[in-house]
């Protein structure tokens, strides 16, 4: 009962009050075993844009993005303060169903983690737990989502092969496909191309640019040229804090902070 109620509330609030920002963090601080990882973060994620979090390693980018769908709940010794609002309601509310939340806010990780089952079963892994599918629907869902990640042409003739037989780039696109299959609103991507070769990276970048019409994308990278290529909004993080955030052009051309200029220009961070 309560889950349904709160879900309804989330959607209603979201539609009425916050038209352009889907997801926002308010005064968010996170500790792991008493060491402060995120320090008072305030962040707006813009609808149907590629929001790109950038910063040196150890800046807390991953911890931040992992807070948005509460995948951090699994981390031992982690403690969070503040709130994250999805369509206006706090996702850290006690009666929020994390499973529902994660199906609305999908996530793709650094290393492609395909399950040791067939390609098709990988695509259906999430969705088939959320609702019953007929065999026909299974095929339709697989085709639709594999097409969305431009993988259909490569694998349509061998959907029942082991997913581990794909190349790393294909595996990562498969991971995106199975995230799409759950029909999320927001997709979080945590350095999805850092384990891939340049060609595969490029195809994923193209994919993201196409996807932003239908989805809100929050993207973490430490690769500055990549951010320059695909980002709409940039969020520069360093040492657990957001140093500067705004449209890409503004940050690259007229940064307000010296640290931002230095990092984006010379890849040196001295904050």
């Amino acid at each position, binding site marked *: 009962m309560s*889950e349904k109620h709160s879900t309804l509330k989330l959607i209603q609030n979201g539609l009425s009050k916050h038209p352009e920002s889907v997801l926002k963090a308010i005064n968010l601080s996170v500790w792991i075993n008493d060491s402060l990882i995120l320090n008072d973060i305030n962040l707006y994620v813009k609808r149907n844009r590629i929001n790109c979090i950038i910063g040196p390693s150890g800046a807390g980018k991953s911890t931040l993005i992992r807070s948005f769908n509460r995948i951090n709940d699994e981390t031992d010794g982690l403690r969070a303060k503040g709130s994250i609002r999805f369509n206006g309601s706090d996702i850290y509310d006690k009666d929020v*169903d994390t*499973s529902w939340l994660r199906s609305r806010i999908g996530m793709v990780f650094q290393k492609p983690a395909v399950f040791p089952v067939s390609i098709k079963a990988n695509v259906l892994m999430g969705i088939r*737990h959320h609702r019953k599918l007929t065999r026909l629907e299974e095929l339709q869902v697989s085709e639709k989502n594999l097409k969305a990640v431009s993988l259909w042409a490569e694998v349509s003739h061998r959907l029942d092969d082991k997913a581990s037989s794909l190349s790393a780039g294909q595996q990562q696109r498969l991971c995106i496909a199975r995230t799409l299959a759950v029909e999320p609103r927001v997709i979080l991507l945590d350095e999805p191309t850092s384990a891939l070769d340049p060609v595969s990276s490029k195809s994923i970048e193209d994919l993201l640019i196409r996807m932003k019409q239908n989805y809100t994308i929050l993207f973490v990278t430490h690769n500055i040229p990549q951010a320059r290529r695909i980002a709409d909004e940039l969020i520069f993080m360093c040492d657990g804090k957001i140093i500067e955030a705004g449209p890409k052009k503004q940050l690259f051309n007229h940064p307000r902070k010296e640290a931002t200029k230095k990092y984006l220009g010379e890849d040196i961070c001295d904050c």
Partner: protein
Amino acid sequence: MSRILKNRLFSGISWISLGICCLILVFLIAVIAWNGIKAINFDFLMSESRHFGASGGIYYQIVGSLLMVLVAALISLPLALGTAVYKSEYLKNSKLQMLSDSLIYGLNGIPSIVFGLFGLIFFVNILNTGISWFVGSVILAFMILPTIVLASYQSINSIPDHYRESALALGMDKWRVITTVLLPQGISGAVTGLLIGLARAVGETAPIMFIATAYSGARYPDSLLEPVAALPTHILALAQQATDPDALQAAWGASFVLICLVTLFSISALFIRKRTQILSER
């Protein structure tokens, strides 16, 4: 909704399972400790058993058990070290490697009573040794061999190759390299394995009950070919008369002492492993 219910059900079952395990553990430890401590006093530990073990103590049982496992250690340690060195340094054929793995795991998997049968046939009957503590030691040594071989093999094999190469480059021959570079590292692994093995051996009943232990009157053995008393077989004899409260009391006492010995060996193993880990990290 039903997914949430399933998840709750699953959590519930998991908690119950772990709860059952903990209950069993607590029950076992409580029973042994509670009954055991009541039975134990200085006299019990230091005197000879009398009247089927129902009165008197378990001094010679402790002596016999320790004697057997310590000699077993002396027999198996050099064998195991040699095997581990050969496996790590000389055996390069991958087929033979696999065979040796299978043999070691196989030996480890042999049911303990089969060791007893082997001892009965080979030593007591064919070699006509009679019931002898030394035969018991040999059998226990065979039993703990795989544990020690694996532990020392792992620690020798984990030494990076550049140690071997730089030692060889200094003009040492292979055996020098083994004794000066590899064995000092391997021996800590071997001792850890040995202690784990001893923790198992000291509690084993089936391998020694036909071939090594005597019921009463066995004290310090005069020769290799005499029986001794031992804790596990003593507990067996007492367990068979479990309704005699005196015998049962003595059985709990002996069990408690046995568990203490097992724990002592295990904890020493843990301690040595910890210490060598620290050393090798330096």
